[in-house]
């Protein structure tokens, strides 16, 4: 029995959802996006009376650390795992062991790579998340609507980050032929770096019309830079996430729009899916969680409902 997770009683799938213990392993910990996700998980678990533990990686690049945490939890008697992997494959090894003991796995936010999962024999009960390319596309459409023509610059997260790349790609495709993307820079998901980069880019391109940032933190940094440069009237900033501060900024008329991804809802759905999976229910292979472009018109509504989605959506798990 060496090497199997059943050593200390991880007796896997218990029948009733009520006494299932859920373990969630999510991404970075210094980002409000994941705070909202954690909140969604905790509150849904409370509401349903299940026991949930949430662990997060030390940072958004801590691939092995996240994997270690999953492995540590896999040794305990959790009935279902919710995972939001940093990369497509960094959790595959740990998940393989979990799947081997027939414990269900729910994948949220960032997808586990399908090939890697198959190779390792990982069984994903369902994937719940948003299409990041689509989110970027929505931002792109909004940008086209707002500025109609001219130069825009893109600010991504850490160089090479998959989520960031998907959002930037989506944006680029959406504005192709309509706007002129002058440059893409990496600001490591950091507000301060985004601010510095945006300041430099405005210096270099005095006629810049807009910025797209791959997340809200960076978007807010850019807003600050734009204000500092006294260009709040001529430059449009759009970002992705739908964090509270960003919604407030949209409401205040600073940030033009944010593409809300509702991490809170993703967290809730993750727990719900886990309960069903543990109870042996069938789940759809993929559940697309809602996204919405929040502009100043709806910012109030969005803030009022935060962290829940402000537009109702069909929850396939209810």
């Amino acid at each position: 029995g060496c090497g199997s997770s059943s050593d200390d009683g991880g007796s896997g799938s218990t029948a009733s959802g009520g006494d299932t213990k859920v373990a969630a392993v999510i991404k970075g910990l210094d980002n409000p996006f994941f705070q909202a996700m954690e909140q969604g998980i905790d509150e849904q678990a409370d509401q349903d009376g299940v026991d949930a533990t949430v662990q997060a990686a030390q940072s958004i690049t801590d691939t092995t650390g996240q994997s270690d945490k999953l492995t540590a939890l896999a040794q305990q008697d959790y009935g279902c795992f919710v995972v939001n992997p940093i990369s497509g494959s960094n959790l595959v090894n740990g998940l393989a062991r979990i799947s081997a003991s027939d414990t269900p796995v729910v994948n949220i936010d960032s997808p586990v790579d399908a090939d890697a999962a198959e190779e390792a024999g990982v069984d994903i009960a369902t994937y719940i998340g948003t299409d990041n390319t689509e989110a970027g596309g929505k931002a792109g459409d909004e940008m086209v609507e707002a500025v109609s023509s001219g130069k825009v610059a893109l600010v991504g997260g850490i160089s090479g980050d998959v989520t960031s790349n998907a959002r930037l790609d989506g944006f680029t495709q959406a504005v192709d032929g309509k706007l002129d993307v002058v440059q893409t820079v990496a600001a490591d998901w950091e507000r301060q770096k985004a601010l510095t980069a945006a300041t430099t880019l405005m210096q270099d391109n005095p006629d810049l019309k807009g910025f797209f940032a791959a997340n809200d933190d960076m978007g807010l940094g850019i807003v600050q830079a734009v204000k500092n440069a006294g260009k709040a009237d001529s430059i449009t900033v759009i970002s992705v996430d739908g964090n509270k501060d960003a919604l407030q900024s949209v409401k205040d008329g600073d940030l033009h729009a944010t593409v809300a991804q509702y991490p809170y809802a993703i967290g809730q759905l993750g727990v719900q899916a886990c309960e069903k999976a543990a109870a042996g229910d069938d789940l759809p292979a993929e559940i697309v969680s809602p996204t919405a472009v929040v502009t100043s018109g709806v910012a109030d509504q969005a803030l009022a409902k935060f962290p829940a989605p402000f537009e109702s959506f069909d929850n396939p798990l209810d």
Partner: protein
Amino acid sequence: MSTTDPTAPRAGTEPGVAPPAPRPTARQRLGSVAWPEVAAPAALVLLLVGFGIADPGFLATGNLGAMLQAAAILMVLVLGQTFVVATAGIDLSVASTMTLSAIALGETYSRTSSILLAVVVALVTGVAVGVLNGLLITKGRITDFIVTLGMLSAASGLALIVADGKPTQVIDRFLLDLTVRGFGIVTWAVLLALVLTVLAHLLLFRTSFGTHLLAVGGSVRAARASGVRTDRVKIAAYALSGSCAGTAAVLLVGRVGASEPASNTSFLLNSVAAVVLGGVSLFGGRATIVSPIAGALLLTALVNGLTRFGLSEFYQPLAVGVVVIAAAFLARFDR
């Protein structure tokens, strides 16, 4: 050196009575400037000229202002790091301390709405971490490297706990103005960094504390034998570094309009790189203030220039690494 001074006794004459020492002449002073200490300013000038020729907009006042603005936080951190390195120590916790101070500012502000109190709390937090570092190093007799490495982790953890992992908006006119208003391209933040630079220079070279700091870096034993309270001096150096981190935190929060529990690792690496580029010996005892500041400006201008040239973001870390090694090659120590 002295042989260029006509009033100095010729070597070999003996037993020569040393003459009343004249103030060193300009030439003598120039002659005694060591090459390592000139390397960073020289490299900075080269870079400015080079980029300026390739892209005249680079030297436009607007862009110069943007660079100064971007450099202000690093400059303040570099001052603290210079003091610590001058004592032959190192402060790996500067960036984390700055993060913790920023969080302390944000939390205080969101609870009391008093920006004054919030700034004071940020500064006190920075000093407290610095003093704790200093006490662990001197009284606890643990190497500076490991103390500040541990503090790097502990302070960022504390920042996360206090902030509950979330950023806090700090929208305050006073703080925002720091990084926007001022005298033309010299904003208040930049002015503060420059004033602190001058003060740091005077502290190091014009006060007895400065001499003691360099003495401790040169030889703890000799300094102690000469009656210098070496432990106090070391603690003070770390406290200074902490207070610089606290000050940098104020500028950081003002700049981004929020306090965030982000780790800011690049500030740590850049602060050390600037100090070493500035020809400050990691073995302690020899330091200037101007050269590390030039090092900080060099690193900032490099990234600004590379961004303007639209060099792919992927090439920037490589360029920074190469420039750091190349500049150190110019500034390499004699010993």
